[in-house]
């Protein structure tokens, strides 16, 4: 099922994949904050290029492009909303000015930077690592376990959904028939067995967990441990520098718009 392909994490290893997820998350947050601080086009253009080396180093260009293409639709909506609404509420009878165009573009780009930074994080962090990071950030273990188990069972449930669909089609269920509402209703005979199956599965899982001493000790240990390495310190240091620089520029340097820059 192509729908679930995106959730299926491919086990790849690169410098970026090996970075500590906590540090990576901090870096993404810094990008996020910086993108929120600036509303002019030039700094946002610069910001857009910051995660690109990470994408290339991790070798996830294709997935990255796919996720950006997914964001494009929303980007167009954001642009149109900004442009059309501001135009009609401020400049209407006259022609739209270049600065209005630039502001709308900046808002759109800000959105793209946010999507970009998060997609880099999720594309280069294995769910395993993420679960571990959650655990070591003192998130209650039940939540971490629920998270990793959910990821573990996505492909299993996808296969099961496919099997149920085939079985129901073999009994004469027509999925691609009728108008929109009818089509949605067509999926009920797929959903019910899927949900019942999932509940049964969860009972069996609970049994297996109990049999393997779930809840035996207050403070459980872990096979793996996340340790900060040199590269992690480097990225953390870089992120802090970037944050300081961004705040400084935002506070004390008048940021020019692209139009004034081009005029110079």
């Amino acid at each position, binding site marked *: 099922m192509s729908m679930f392909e995106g959730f299926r994490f491919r*086990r790849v290893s690169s410098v970026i994949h090996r970075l500590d997820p906590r540090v990576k998350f901090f870096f993404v947050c810094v990008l996020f904050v910086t993108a929120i601080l600036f509303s002019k086009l030039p700094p946002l253009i610069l910001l857009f290029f910051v995660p690109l080396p990470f994408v290339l180093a991790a070798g996830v260009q294709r997935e990255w492009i796919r996720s950006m293409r997914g964001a494009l639709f929303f980007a167009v909506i954001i642009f149109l909303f900004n442009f059309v609404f501001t135009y009609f509420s401020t400049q209407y009878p006259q022609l739209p000015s270049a600065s209005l165009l630039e502001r709308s573009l900046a808002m759109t780009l800000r959105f793209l930077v946010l999507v970009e930074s998060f997609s880099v994080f999720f594309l280069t962090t*294995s*769910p*395993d690592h993420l*679960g571990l990071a959650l655990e070591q950030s003192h998130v209650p273990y039940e939540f971490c*376990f629920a998270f*990793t*188990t959910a*990821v*573990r*069972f996505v*492909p*299993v449930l996808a296969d099961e959904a496919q099997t149920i669909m085939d079985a129901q089609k073999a009994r004469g269920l027509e999925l691609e028939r009728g108008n929109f509402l009818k089509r949605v209703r067509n999926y009920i005979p797929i959903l019910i067995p899927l949900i019942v199956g999932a509940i049964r*599965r969860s009972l*069996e*899982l*609970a*049994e*297996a*967990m*109990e*049999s*393997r*001493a*779930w*809840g*035996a*000790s207050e*403070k*459980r*240990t*872990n*096979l*793996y*441990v996340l340790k900060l390495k040199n590269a992690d310190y480097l990225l953390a240091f870089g992120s802090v520098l970037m944050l300081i620089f961004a705040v400084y520029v935002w506070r004390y340097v008048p940021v020019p718009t692209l139009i004034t820059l081009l005029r110079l």
Partner: protein
Amino acid sequence: MAVIKTRDLTYTYPGATKASIKDVSITIEKGEFVVLTGPSGCGKTTLCRCFNGLIPLFYGGKLEGEVVVAGCKVVEHSIYELARHVGLVFQNPENQLFALSVEKDVAFGLENLAVSRDEMRKRVDWALQITGIEDLSERSPHELSGGQQQRVAIACVLAMQPDVMILDEPTSFLDPVGAQKIFEVINELNKELGITVILVEHRLDLASKYANHVIVMDEGKVVLDGEPRGVFNSEKARLIGVGVPKATRLYQILGENGIRLGRVPVTSEEAASLLREVLKRD
């Protein structure tokens, strides 16, 4: 020394009107390889659940009589305390693996028991090596075949170093080759490590050669309990519908026709050598 002892064990699931197991009194000695068999729905799985506390703690319901496992009265202990002594491997391998890598899954029980990291690493590698899946340690359970998944499930339980290992139809989702491999792994655990094994199984042709104790259940009751040859050769076993090993069945048919083999065979190899003897003599 008995590792599992039950006395007049009767259990009714919540909401059920009829007891699933009735007056079960069995003794399983340390180091035995027990095959537990009987028609579907005869209470084999229910009995297994009594051995590690899932019944009555997880399921509720009404339990009468007594179960003692590794010196602990089951009703007086929590499931996680019993998990140190009794490992349970389930029928569907897919639903007992919940981590994203094999290694992590094998470590799950040890993590729960708060075993130190070095010790855990040692035991995980040990369990993977015994079950012959070291090369799969980094893989995700979803990428494995059913047979490999079941071996991982066995490794998960093995890593906790239980005294007793209960396997509830571990091969019903596997092909004959996969099943054969699982049986060999289980046999090794029993013979090399001295772990008491209780194997719930229908495929007696494959499983019975390893067993030295067979228990047959029917409608919640233990109907036959003893050493394999005697149990398989009894008329009762055949009438209940137990899949008596074909070698034993052959022995019986030959007997009805007046040909006596030296003893009751359980495997086809045994039957073959006995037949050879008879043919030479004639």
